[in-house]
């Protein structure tokens, strides 16, 4: 943990230990979606809305069937924080982003923003998905799609 004025710490893509989701029939499609490099969400075949987190029935139209469908993997940083507290001992500071997917304003993912230092990060930054495999899980992370404005 560094006070302002100290030499900048190295930044990490995430916590030193990735605690993982427990896969079940409802979430497996999401957490393994990155196996082919694509991000997927449930989508309603009735009203065409994307639905996240997974639920049994479309919460918008309460009608149509929900099926996992690939999305572009593009999004925008809605907000972010640089975590310094060592909840998991040995972790260097890492960026926890909240990303809104390009397809739908009310679908967001908590994620880590990688390939980007905090000094280049901003609310509204366009990002694209990238995956980090850990055991049987492909964690969606996001990286900048263009150089930030200077």
């Amino acid at each position, binding site marked *: 943990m560094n006070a302002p004025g100290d030499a900048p710490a190295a930044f990490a893509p995430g916590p030193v230990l990735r*605690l*993982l*989701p*427990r896969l079940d029939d409802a979430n497996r499609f999401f957490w393994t979606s990155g196996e082919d490099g694509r991000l997927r969400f449930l989508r309603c075949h009735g009203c065409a809305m994307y639905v996240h987190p997974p639920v049994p029935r479309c919460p918008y139209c309460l009608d149509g069937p929900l099926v996992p469908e690939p999305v572009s993997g593009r999004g925008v940083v809605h907000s*972010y*924080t640089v975590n310094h*507290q060592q*909840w998991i001992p040995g972790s260097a500071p890492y960026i926890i982003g*909240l990303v809104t997917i390009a397809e739908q304003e009310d679908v967001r*993912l908590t994620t880590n923003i990688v390939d980007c230092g905090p000094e280049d990060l901003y609310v509204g930054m366009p990002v694209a998905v990238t995956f980090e495999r850990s055991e049987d899980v492909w964690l969606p992370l996001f990286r900048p799609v263009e150089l930030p404005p200077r």
Partner: protein
Amino acid sequence: MSRPDLLERRAVVSGIGQSDVGRRLGRSDLDLTVDACLQAIADAGLQRDDIDGLATFPGAGVGTGGFAGPSSPEVQDALRLKLNWHDGGLEGPGQLRAVFAACLAVAAGLARHVLVYRTVTESTAQGEGGRQGIGGGGGGASSRGVPRFSGFLQWTIPYGAVSAVNWIAWIAQRRMHEFGLTREQLAQIALNGRRNAARNPKAIYRDPLTLQDYLDVRMISTPLCLYDCDAPCDGSTAVVVSHADYAPDTPRPALHVNAIGTAIRGRPSWDQFDDMTTFAARDAAASMWARTELRPSDVDVAELYDGFSILTMVWLEEMGLCPKGESGPFVEGGARIALDGAVPLNTSGGQLSAGRLHGFGMLHEACLQLRGDGGERQVPGSPEVAAVAAGGGPIAGCMLLTRGPAS
């Protein structure tokens, strides 16, 4: 204006009590709770056998060490209470949900005098080990024997977003983007709390805090630093909620519940709620103001939850005590929120300096102020209306208390 439809107006806070509050008191949660409860019962001018209702937030078995306090069955048995109504639980409009439930119980005639308590022993439980994130197993295990997570935590824990401070830091960062909030403005919540805590003998931190101290201290989760986070403590707070027809008989002034705010209209989620700058405080406050003829300008003292400083900024705006998006400029310099300011705020020092009594400290302090029992930190001019708010993110509840009955 008589509003018989507003059932909460049939309730009063007839008594208040609070145990010792401190760091690592080394006493059990039940021990502290009994202290607070007996004080509240005596303060209400009642005997133990008069209590026929019991409620708590959140009830046992919730959260990490020292968070939950004793269960209502434990407290019932410790005091050998004979109950007509009882309630405990986590889900609902924030920490004050237990108080709201008690108000409705006395209004419905299910009980006449409800004891409501909230106890924390997080300081003793954490010992020297420091603050914990929100952990807890999700069931199942990976091949390495490391626990895996289900429910909401599955979406955050893989990314190291393991504490409310991470999610609440998003609120502050988003507000910096939308409203130009600065760290110097945010600091005023912490500095105001510390100034008031110096006048509160029970406060955890009473030494002076300067803006430079604030700017120099270590970051927890940007832009939130150590002084933006409340101080884990040990302590129990209790109130007695009675039917309003008991008000003439209380030894100390009974405080009237004018309106409660309980709404949540956005998605109940830390990362999916529609407006990250307000979260459910928007809905809770709107529902409260819809139930009263009072106006924000009538509020004489405001006790607004400061589990994290930014949450107080949100409540200031959503309660209508300053314009939307302008809480930063509003608190600048600290004069408007000081004890003699337009909106005296978190007069005990709040959770940032007086200790994380988890919402019930705000309620207790509002009662002290309305009774004129604030001692060195009493707000001048005999405050008549207090606003109390608790919670952050998708967890929010608020209420108005008045010294006299609604006219």
